[in-house]
């Protein structure tokens, strides 16, 4: 299943990438792929902005405006009420 196209704020700076593949390991939606000696983005629209890759990239090659994709949280005070 795929969500709305062209909305994700995921940004990848390929020049900084050291190919440690952490992002590839932690991404829950196969946004990244390994291509020879560098990581590449295979399908950006699959990104759900969870921030796992950004949090675990040791060289700061990735950035995203991460947050929860939950209408209840966005309409409220940012808290999803799941507590």
């Amino acid at each position, binding site marked *: 299943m795929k*969500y*709305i196209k062209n909305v994700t704020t995921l940004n990848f700076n390929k020049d900084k990438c050291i190919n440690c593949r952490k992002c590839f390991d932690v991404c829950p*939606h196969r946004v990244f792929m390994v291509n020879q000696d560098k990581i590449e983005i295979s399908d950006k629209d699959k990104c*759900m902005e969870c921030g796992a890759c950004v*949090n*675990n990239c040791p060289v700061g090659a990735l950035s995203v405006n991460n947050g929860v*994709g939950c*209408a209840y949280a966005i309409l409220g005070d940012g808290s*999803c009420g799941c507590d």
Partner: protein
Amino acid sequence: MGCCEVCSCNTGFLNLEKKINLKDRFYWFLARTGLKRTGLSIKPGLYRLGNPDKNSDVFVTANYRLSVDALKIGLKELDAWILVLDTKGLNVWCAAGKGTFGTQELISQIKQCKLTEIVNHKRLILPQLSAPGVNSNEVFIKTGFKVFFGPVRAEDINQYITNHYNADEKMRTVNFKFFDRIKLIPVELKLSLKYIFFFFILFLAKNYFLLDEKSIKLIINNSLKNVIPVLGGLVCGTVLIPMFLPYIPFKAFFIKGFYVGVIYTVIIFNYLDYFGYGSILEKFSVVIWTIVISSLSSLNFTGCSTYTSFSGVKKEIDIFYKPSIFFIVLGFIFYFSIILLNK
């Protein structure tokens, strides 16, 4: 707090029961029906599962009962250490998103539990979905422990270990299958019913004013009839959308709900007289309400889904939320004005 028992006294470690018993299943039932949303936590700290020794693996999880149970089931006969973080009783993914299943909490539990004295290795296995909250580089620098992000689902853990601590593509990918989705329906429905109750109160008030003969039974009967089509709109968004999500056209959740809502109102349109919507303006009002309720409750399901992004949901809200409220209010204006005119 849980760790103090492990570290400072000689009575031994906290033990986890290997078997899932009737009490655990009762807690699952409470959680899945939404009868109990809080208080499903267990004490954070280091637990023994079976008879782990200094070489046994350490698995990290949240202190939400269902998370711990899933891990226990996944580990089957394996002896292991379970490090339970204080996530305030929240599941792994949500807690990672909120930061309670986070780098600092993990580091502090490793230190509090004196994990270096308990195991001979420097390996921690975390659920992959904790990665939004855990910075593995920082954990390594501050504690010396190397974080291995394991599979998404605890049921794959044995396979993961057999694979020499490698999660294959299937293990790393989040699904949202039929059964994953229908499990969420009871809670969704329960949380949304308050909106329908609000409509019911309004119908009670309307029927009270409209009926010459103030029979309580008749007022309640008519109000129940009035509320049924609206309730149907909610069922579209909270039951049909989760069930058939991949097969409903359009990507935006609001539009999915709108689509199903329109089909539903087309089907029930000819029966609206029976539910107490006689005039065209009343019909117009109830059609608006059902479609908007279906759309909004579908939009609300983004919070349960495993693939919607913050930016995407925000876009949907920016486009659709205000018009929805406008139309709901318009429905009320039409509905009550015609009644006042008839009076």
